[in-house]
């Protein structure tokens, strides 16, 4: 054998995330989305450097954007009703949303993918059972589910993640199930069956990788929804416990004064919607570029 292993490895094609990102360069919509997301990731990473003050420190209530702070600095985005610096709170708040939204989405995907693969590949009573359970959950107003669940089990980070998994997994299951139903009829799946592969091997190695295109697009959209959901839960007072800064909670706390001091509500609202917009644009871009493959 003249070819060595390293010769072959050099010819290994670029795959996975890198290939997806290389393709994404073709779509300016996707690139804008990615830029917005990377901006917020940077803000979250460098929150201690960016924020001029302690996000919990009480200073000048209702300070306008650009007005001077007691220590000679500037409230770049103003201060809220009890005098906390809004810029600092947004910077620290971005950490909360960028940790819990991806975490909850990821967990929802693990659950949804397993359910969807089982339903779509195994069929039979398992499919009927899982699909009906999913239908029942989806037929409830999701928000109502969240409210009941969180009030029942208490406000905590873990409960928010669990509630989101519970509400999102059935939707993911439906997508995965539909894709699996199609892919299970392919000849390479039959080839795996003929050589006696286990069901889990077939589901995870033969079917799941071929469902990744639509799932990556859906994941970006869903991340956007989850960010909104966490915001809404915060707004309804069911979010992460105060006083830790959290965008939904910031909007909620200041909304009564929004007519007089709009900056207090607008800043977190713009932050929230820009991040959601970023994920939606990224999803659009991925859809556009993945279709060309």
């Amino acid at each position: 054998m003249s070819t060595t292993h390293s010769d072959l490895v050099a010819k290994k094609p670029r795959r996975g995330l890198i290939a997806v990102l290389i393709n994404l360069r073709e779509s300016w919509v996707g690139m804008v989305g990615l830029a917005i997301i990377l901006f917020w990731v940077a803000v979250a990473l460098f929150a201690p450097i960016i924020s001029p003050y302690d996000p919990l420190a009480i200073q000048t209530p209702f300070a306008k954007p650009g007005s001077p702070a007691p220590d000679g600095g500037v409230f770049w985005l103003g201060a809220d009703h009890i005098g906390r610096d809004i810029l600092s709170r947004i910077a620290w708040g971005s950490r909360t949303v960028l940790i819990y939204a991806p975490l909850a989405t990821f967990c929802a995907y693990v659950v949804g993918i397993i359910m969807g693969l089982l339903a779509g590949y195994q069929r039979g009573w398992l499919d009927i059972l899982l699909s009906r359970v999913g239908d029942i959950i989806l037929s409830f107003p999701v928000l109502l589910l969240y409210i009941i669940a969180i009030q029942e089990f208490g406000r905590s980070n873990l409960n928010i993640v669990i509630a989101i998994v519970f509400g999102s997994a059935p939707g993911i299951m439906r997508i995965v199930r539909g894709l699996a139903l199609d892919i299970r009829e392919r000849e390479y799946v039959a080839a795996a069956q003929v050589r006696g592969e286990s069901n889990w091997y077939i589901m995870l190695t033969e079917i799941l990788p071929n469902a990744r295109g639509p799932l990556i697009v859906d994941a970006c959209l869903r991340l956007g929804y989850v960010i909104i959901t966490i915001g809404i839960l915060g707004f309804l007072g069911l979010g992460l416990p105060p006083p830790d800064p959290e965008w939904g909670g910031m909007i909620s706390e200041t909304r009564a004064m929004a007519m007089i001091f709009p900056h207090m509500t607008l800043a977190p609202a713009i932050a929230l919607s820009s991040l959601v917009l970023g994920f939606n644009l990224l999803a659009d871009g991925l859809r556009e570029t993945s279709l060309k493959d």
Partner: protein
Amino acid sequence: MSQNPPLLEIENLHVSYWTRAAEVPAVIDFSLSINEGDTVGLVGESGCGKSTVAMAIMNYMGTNGSIKSGAIRLRGRDITQLNQNEMRILRGNEIAMIYQEPMASLNPAMTVAQQLMEVPIIHQGASSDQSRSASEQMLSDVHIPDPARIMASYPHQISGGQQQRVVIAMALLANPSLLLLDEPTTALDVTVEAGIVKLIREIADKYKMTQIYISHNLGLILQTCERVCVMYSGQAVEEGSISNLFSHPKHPYTHGLFNCIPLPQTDKNDAPLIPIPGQLPLPHERPTGCTYGPRCRAFKEVCGNQGVPYEHIEETDQHVRCRRWSEIKPGDLIPDKVPMENAQIGDIVLDTKNLSKHYEVEGTSRNFSTMLGFKETVALKANQELNLSARHGETLAIVGESGCGKSTFAKVLLGLETSTSGELTHDGAEIGTIGVRDRQQVQLAALQIVFQNPVDTLNPSHTVGAQVGRVLKKFGISHGKIDTRDKTLELLAKVKLPDEFYYRLPRQLSGGQKQRIGIARAFAGKPTLVVADEPVSALDVSVQAAITELLMEIQREYGTTLLLISHDLSVVRYLSDRVVVMYLGRIVESGSRNQIFEPPYHPYTEALLAAAPIADLRVKKRDIILEGTLPSPLDPPKGCPFTTRCPRRIGDICDTTPPEEQISVGGHRIACHIPLEELSQIDPVFAITE
């Protein structure tokens, strides 16, 4: 030649598609003139530009394609200069087109009547009554029984052959002067195809309609056309009358195509097929000079310098695009071939006794109990009492049209389904009732399959090396990473692919290359029996030959039994040692290759043989067109399964009593009520004249 000006004149046509990256020339310098009433075949492999020519004639190339230069004149009027409105009047009225997939051509939400009646109403301004009677008349002209019932049906309620007849009727209703047929029978079964081909010939005679028949199948072109134009890589490479071109092809590519087709007088051992080396160049990688140059066995330096002109051969009707056509002798184009030895036929590997497979399906009847939710189940008898056996090293072919149960048998054999009754033994052990999960590893490795569809056979997410290596690891052929990689590379070499393919993804491979990987995967576990389910039917002619030869070579080397499932009788005749013919879940005839292809025939085998197109002028065939459609397997005839369509039906006994198998010398079995002596009197379906 004709005094009248030609009906259609295509002059130096260039068509290109524009992609984001670059311009892709699809048709280059294409010229063709067609006289009124001519039938011209356009033949070539996928990607050669034949469909693009048809689309250019319709001036319908989508948003990214356009005619770059050249003229298409219909009765002297250049249609490339027409605007959309003028073109719309032309389409349908003057030029009509029939596509490959009849179900995709018909609107599933409209009845046949609505779709047919539109045509006279729009094109001739006919009244509703006029167009209804014209439509019904046309349906009976295309030999659809009971037109009134078909008119009221939706497309999905009628069979594929009938759908295509409806499409043809629709095209004819506007009485166009030019009919474009783009692979009109490719999606159909072979006996149905024979009926459509006969109809197309009839239309040409009856209406004197000019036709352009696009196909990859030279045999079909021979049956339907008077003239033929061979295309390669966007160019016409040869053109001439059927009789000249089929008897004295001039261009090396045409030669190559003929050498790739198994002809009735050849045999796998004494006359192997000669595949065309290499593959069709991508449009942006076409070589300078002759585009066929890199694959041509008669290539000389002079061919590669500059573009080759399309030359008219003096005193003939032939055109050719080759610099050296006058110097090349057919012998130059054929490499030295070594006659192969017959493989050693050993003991029985596979044996079945009265094997049946029934599926329980929900009944279609509606009555009180089904309304209450009690489901009625009906047995769909996919396989009934199959008796067959295969020996070590032998190629056993199972022939039949879609729905005959050949794939179901393969599924039971591989353990994807379990049998309902009867025995199926492999190396003496019963496996028919054992599903794939309960089989031992040795049995799994021993029984493998090569699939039909190259697009689907490999997992698009994994590299070639990973997919072949997985089989080696799974069956304990290799141990450890390095060993697996080395053995995978050995296998790649065996299917004649270089090491670079190890890390390729399926989408980077051509159809033939994927099929090679599929073969490597099937043979990785050193199987004793490989099912080849239509292994070449989705491939181009030149690739088919290469894959067929490869399959045989590997089979010889491993001494594997090959179970060839196919509807293509020319491939079966070429490859197989023994043949089983199935119809509606039953075996109607079985025997050695020669027994099957010579009388006595079962009437169904006879019809199948007559239906298969053969690309050889010397072969004269009888015409047998089967009437009617395949009965539903849910409600098969009580007697002989073939009784509803049999042209040799002898009487009520065929309807009421299932025929016994008649066994003649050498184990040739025919299940028919007609006595063997009488069946032996029947003339052969084809005769070879010199």
